[in-house]
């Protein structure tokens, strides 16, 4: 028992020492576990060699990352020197003073950063997070199937044409489904796609007083269309499908058409894939989303300067070249959607057939607040309450898709939940 006591005591002291020891030449980086981030850990070995800065990577599942980073940043915990955040958080946290403004040297060439990304990650013109990779959404369809069915899919096609094309290529007996779309509940899952559909029908999450608009005609039309399209021409159990599930289906050759993140194009392994800009129902603004996984420095970080230096390197043109030149990776693995210069490399264009479509989608995404929607963000609203509102509505939309509720009932319940959250938050 003495041994147990002594060891426990040693751990108390050891643990306390561990929490206080935070040398400036060591950075702790919280990242989401995506392919590009995983590659960064290897590419950054060169950074450690060059600068002597040891990098501690904490890889977390997206939901847990948000939870940990939010609580750490809000409480000034200081567990992380660099954090991976998305476009939803960056402007809000910047405005709240939770993350440091980012200013880089002239060599960084900030004007090379795609304007949509720069704007989406800024608040009042100040950049708070640097994009590591970015994405919009687009249509990824099997041209061999559309050709065989004698239908076409055009850029910014109408939803009616998309539905007709999905119906034409839908052959469930042969294991091919016309349209594979997100149905799994989550503000970043089904609601990302659904919001773009609603936007394209002329709807919005909130009016100018931030009252939820889920009982509007635009929402009703959009959700009825979504449930009809996915219910009739989607794979069974679509309410359980999000990015990864659909990616697996697509690569098994079971999807004729997929509208999702442009990053998906780099994972597709089937032949005959063609790309088109997102469809709409007469309103192209907001029909394609905009997202970035970006890197930020929590306010008050003792290693703020070293952290900013690392971010400058990891989001630079040099980093993209370093990935391309890395023996394990190459041009097919470079993070996209952040810099115009990436798309200008002939080597990149040669391996990325989706490059032009992705760039066009990102450039046309419109996250800024407008008369129609008083908030920043395309497939989300950059307000602190959105994750809660989005998650509540997501459950109702999944219920409508599965048939557990009618569209009208689901929207009524969603409106009521969103209204309660916004009222409690003090918007009105």
């Amino acid at each position: 028992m003495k041994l147990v006591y002594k060891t426990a005591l040693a751990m108390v002291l050891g643990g306390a020492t561990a929490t206080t020891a935070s040398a400036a030449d060591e950075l702790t980086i919280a990242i989401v576990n995506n392919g590009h981030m995983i590659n960064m850990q290897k590419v950054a070995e060169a950074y450690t060699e060059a600068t002597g800065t040891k990098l501690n990577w904490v890889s977390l599942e997206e939901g847990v990352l948000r939870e940990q980073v939010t609580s750490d940043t809000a409480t000034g915990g200081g567990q992380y020197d660099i954090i991976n955040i998305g476009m939803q958080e960056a402007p809000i946290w910047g405005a709240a003073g939770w993350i440091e403004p980012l200013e880089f040297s002239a060599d960084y060439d900030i004007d090379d950063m795609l304007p949509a990304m720069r704007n989406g990650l800024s608040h009042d013109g100040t950049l708070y997070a640097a994009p590591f990779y970015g994405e919009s959404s687009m249509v990824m369809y099997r041209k061999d199937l559309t050709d065989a069915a004698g239908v076409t899919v055009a850029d910014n096609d109408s939803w009616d044409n998309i539905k007709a094309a999905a119906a034409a290529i839908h052959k469930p007996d042969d294991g091919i489904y016309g349209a594979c779309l997100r149905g799994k509940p989550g503000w970043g899952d089904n609601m990302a796609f659904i919001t773009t559909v609603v936007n394209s029908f002329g709807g919005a999450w909130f009016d100018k007083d931030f009252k939820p608009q889920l009982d509007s005609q635009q929402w009703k039309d959009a959700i009825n269309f979504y449930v009809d399209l996915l219910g009739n021409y989607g794979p069974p159990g679509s309410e359980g499908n999000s990015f990864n599930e659909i990616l697996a289906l697509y690569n098994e050759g079971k999807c004729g058409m997929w509208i999702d993140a442009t990053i998906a194009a780099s994972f597709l392994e089937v032949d005959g894939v063609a790309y088109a800009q997102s469809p709409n129902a007469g309103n192209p603004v907001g029909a394609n989303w905009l997202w970035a996984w970006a890197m930020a420095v929590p306010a008050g970080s003792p290693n703020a300067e070293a952290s900013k230096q690392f971010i400058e390197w990891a989001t630079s043109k040099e980093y993209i070249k370093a990935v391309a030149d890395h023996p394990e990776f190459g041009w097919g693995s470079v993070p996209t959607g952040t810099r115009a210069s990436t798309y200008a490399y002939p080597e990149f264009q040669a391996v990325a057939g989706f490059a032009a479509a992705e760039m066009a989608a990102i450039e046309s995404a419109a996250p800024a607040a407008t008369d129609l929607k008083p908030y920043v963000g395309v497939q989300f609203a950059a307000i602190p309450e959105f994750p809660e509102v989005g998650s509540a509505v997501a459950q109702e939309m999944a219920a409508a898709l599965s048939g557990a509720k009618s569209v009208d009932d689901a929207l009524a319940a969603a409106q009521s939940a969103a209204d309660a959250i916004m009222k409690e938050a003090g918007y009105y």
Partner: protein
Amino acid sequence: MAVIDQTSKFGKVFWPLLAWTVALIFFFPIFWLVFTSFKTDADAVKPEFLFKFTPTLENYTNMTENYDYWRFAINSVITSTFATLFALFVGVPAAYAMAFNPSRHTKDILVWMLSTKMLPAAAVLYPMTFLTKNYLGIFDTHFLIIVVLSLINLPIVIWMLFTYFKEIPKEIIEAGKMDGVSTWGEIKDILIPLAWGGVASTALLCFIFCWNEAYWTVRLTTTDAATLSKLIEGNRAPEGLFFGRLSAVSAAAVGPIVVLGWFCQKQLVRGLTFGAVK
């Protein structure tokens, strides 16, 4: 439902067959996990490579070389071992007191202890994070994880030990008392040897629960005290199918506990069925 006689011809075939079927159903996820861990990420999601593929150790080498598996594994061993020892250190005297010197509130105390398990962990996440990080300075330490794991398993440890201790005739303990044995002596020399199967199975179960705990070990650690649960959690990707790698990490995380359970299954079964048939 009519009971099938174990000694009948049909029963002799039916019961073993049912046992094997249930065993296979339970074992299948483990088998599939290990099976998939030898596939590349690309092969792991392709139906044509469901059973026929070229096995690779790539995921395991990647895990040890790039993901610092051993650091997470050592942290899991340290935290689970010491949390189990601490839970027993507190649980054995507590169960002894309640089994042999019960008061009229003993049952209430036992129920109250168990009721603490009903508290949703998320409800205390923020205060736990805030206090341990900003005031106590013990966030991401072995000490914190050991204390948390001990405390969340303590109700079950006490309940299990209490049940085992109740099976031991009170007279034996009283005889020891009359021979002048101290309280600690009663526990050490009489109670534990008599209830050894129960204590061992309680310790094993507690260790397994500590090893598998994911909610707190993921949220109260960063790097220094991160356990295998955190390694698995970190390998879940929202965009990208890395099932081969995730399977390897998961297999390597559950492997030690499966092996431990295999070697200790006799004690585990004996302890769990102790007093079940009266």
